[in-house]
């Protein structure tokens, strides 16, 4: 079977500049909107998938979904730390940190307010999260009501800049440092020392205990030890898994992206179909000539579907470019939403990954395929004699 040269279709696209341009722009916009919304969802997802370690176990009260709901009493902590499996630090003490998590209602710089997690950590707390770096100032001194604030929170909330004081009634905390956790969960938190915080908030105990275990076997052993002690009524979750379970926070955004994307794609597909029908109608004689020259129906069909795919691909590429520009220029800063699992702000950035861009391209090709199929079959079944007789 002889194929119609692809150049034929590509040149034809450029002959009809206005129609091609409008259709490409339409598909491009649909792809761009889809990509922007998905980049938002991807950015949020990435916070959770990049957080936590496989070797850390987070000890929570049974049935607690988050640290906020959990409670671990003071006298339980030594029992937890003596369970087999906890890795010792260089000084021989267990590498673990009993922590308290409270959410504070802080005012945003852009107006409105949101809940921010303030975490009191033990002396080993920092060692358990090696990805953290201090970008400004110093770490807090225990017992002095000092806090270090993540860069993301510092840029989004009032009174959270270096040297400022966060205060509520009787509570006052001075910001002595700004840290960066490379886009992971602590980037949405404020840190201070746990004992000071327990005093400030008049709490009777901790929220959770984070413990390092020495590898997989030790981890399983530690978790089994916790589960085996019914008096404790605690459970150990692998830190990695704890954060994975929170990725559902991004589900509404992703759902919205797909909903808007798919409905709009059908609309844009209709638009592409229009363009292709017009292209077929304008070239009826040409198509008949091709058929008369011996090109098969299938060749004509393939040829027009290909033309439609090219049209959509141009749209897809434009959409990727527009999406990329939007994310780079207009949406480059950090943004935030509330993670309802922890009832507090999660700071994140838009993330347009290569995989998403590929999805955008595939998306446009699907539009092009369905948009081209029917017009192409009309072209393929053109009656040669009638069409050749036609004038104009």
């Amino acid at each position: 079977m002889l194929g119609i040269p692809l150049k034929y279709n590509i040149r034809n696209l450029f002959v009809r500049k206005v129609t091609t341009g409008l259709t490409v722009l339409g598909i491009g916009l649909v792809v761009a909107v889809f990509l922007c919304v998905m980049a938002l969802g991807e950015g949020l997802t990435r916070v959770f998938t990049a957080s936590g370690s496989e070797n850390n176990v987070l000890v929570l009260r049974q049935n607690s979904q988050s640290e906020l709901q959990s409670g671990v009493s003071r006298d339980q902590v030594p029992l937890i730390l003596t369970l087999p499996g906890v890795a010792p630090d260089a000084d021989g003490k267990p590498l673990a940190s009993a922590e308290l998590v409270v959410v504070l209602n802080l005012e945003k710089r852009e107006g409105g307010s949101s809940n921010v997690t303030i975490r009191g950590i033990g002396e080993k707390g920092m060692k358990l999260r090696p990805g953290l770096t201090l970008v400004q100032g110093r770490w807090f001194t225990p017992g002095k009501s000092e806090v270090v604030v993540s860069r993301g929170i510092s840029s989004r909330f009032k009174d959270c800049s270096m040297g400022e004081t966060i205060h509520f009634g009787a509570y006052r905390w001075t910001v002595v440092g700004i840290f960066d956790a490379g886009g992971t969960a602590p980037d949405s938190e404020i840190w201070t020392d746990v004992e000071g915080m327990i005093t400030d908030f008049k709490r009777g105990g901790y929220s959770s205990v984070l413990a390092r275990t020495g590898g997989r076997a030790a981890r399983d052993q530690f978790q089994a030890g916790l589960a085996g002690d019914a008096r404790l009524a605690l459970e150990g979750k692998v830190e990695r898994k704890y954060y994975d379970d929170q990725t559902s926070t991004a589900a509404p955004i992703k759902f919205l992206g797909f909903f808007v994307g798919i409905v709009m794609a059908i609309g844009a597909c209709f638009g592409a179909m229009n363009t292709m029908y017009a292209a077929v109608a304008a070239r009826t004689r040409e198509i008949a000539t091709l058929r008369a020259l011996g090109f098969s129906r299938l060749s004509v069909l393939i040829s027009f579907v290909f033309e439609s795919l090219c049209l959509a691909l141009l749209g897809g590429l434009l959409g990727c470019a527009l999406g990329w520009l939007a994310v780079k220029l207009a949406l480059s800063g950090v943004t935030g939403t509330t993670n309802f699992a922890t009832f507090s702000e999660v700071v994140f950035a838009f993330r347009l990954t290569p995989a998403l861009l590929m999805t955008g391209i595939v998306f446009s090709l699907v539009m092009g395929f369905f948009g081209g199929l029917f017009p192409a079959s009309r072209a393929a079944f053109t009656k040669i004699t009638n069409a050749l007789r036609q004038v104009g």
Partner: protein
Amino acid sequence: MKYLPFVFKNLFRKKTRSLLTLGSILLPLFVICVMGTLLKTLSRDPSEGRGMYRLVVRHKVSLTNFIPEAYRERIFQLGGIQEMSIWCWFGGKYVDYSAKNQFARFGVEPEKFLKVFDEARFIEGTAPDWISDRAGAIVGDALAKKYGWKVGQKITLTGDIYPITLDLTIRGIYTAENASALFFNWTYVEEALPRVKGRIGTFYVKAKSAADVERLPKQIDALFENADPPTKTETEKDFQNGFVSMLGNVKFMLTGICTAIVFVILLIAANTMAMAARERVTEIAVLRTLGYQKSTILGMILGESLLLALFGGVAGLAFFVLTFPGFKAWLMNTPMAGFAAGIKLFPSVLAAGFGVAVFVGLVAGVVPAIRSARRSITDGLRQVG
């Protein structure tokens, strides 16, 4: 107006094209209506037009901290209060933690609650039934419909904040503006967990008049300013808006999506009109030789474009209105469930959708209309094709 039949005929000359264009206006307009409805729902005043003088008192630092129940007496002494009820977020798990099984569960004091939340009407069961059953609960009709709950049915909630499993019996189904929550008797939790007693999440206060709503928040907060813990009191509206603000810049996102969609419709409609005008160059030249004015040609093309957009627009709005109940029910089972509970048909959203259609119709037709009107007759007649 006398050209209307002619414009009409032109519009449906190419049936496939007209239908496809209608479809490609209808679907995006549907999306615009959905986005608009979400936007409107998020920015709505929960006490809109009801004259409900409700205030929410909570811990100043955080909603997750407790305030003493003993504050009640002192707040009451400020006067101007009709009634106030404990209002505690229970959280917990119904069946599982998936998005489709998420809904609000609050522990309240039934008798007082019904006076504070007095717009709620029982559509099944009665208030005394609920009040007399310590393990009784009432559910919103939207929720009851979603899960197919009936009065007398048992529901189990597994606690997470509170380590307790609640075995509740539905004693009533209520209806109100946004009837998508479950309320149960807080005493149930207090009796099972003595350490919880006396420490509550929030108070809902119903004030007697607008002046009291104005005065009370400042007075309540001043009362506990140096107490431990201090309180934050705000109107129900501000309290709700606080949650919307917590979601981040959702309004910006939804508005952005809508703007982009308007452009997409515009491009598709403009494409259709450009194709239609191009095919009719010769025909228009003939009309001109027959004595039709440039302005008439302009009006006809513009009218056709407007008509096309209006057909698509009205179809889109009708589609939205007709599918709305089903769409809402469907949305209740998606990750959007939390947002879907409060959505309803807003006339202003439909009006905005109509406005978009008119805008698209006019703008999409402008260029082809002017070009068709301006083209010289000889040029037009000479054109082949």
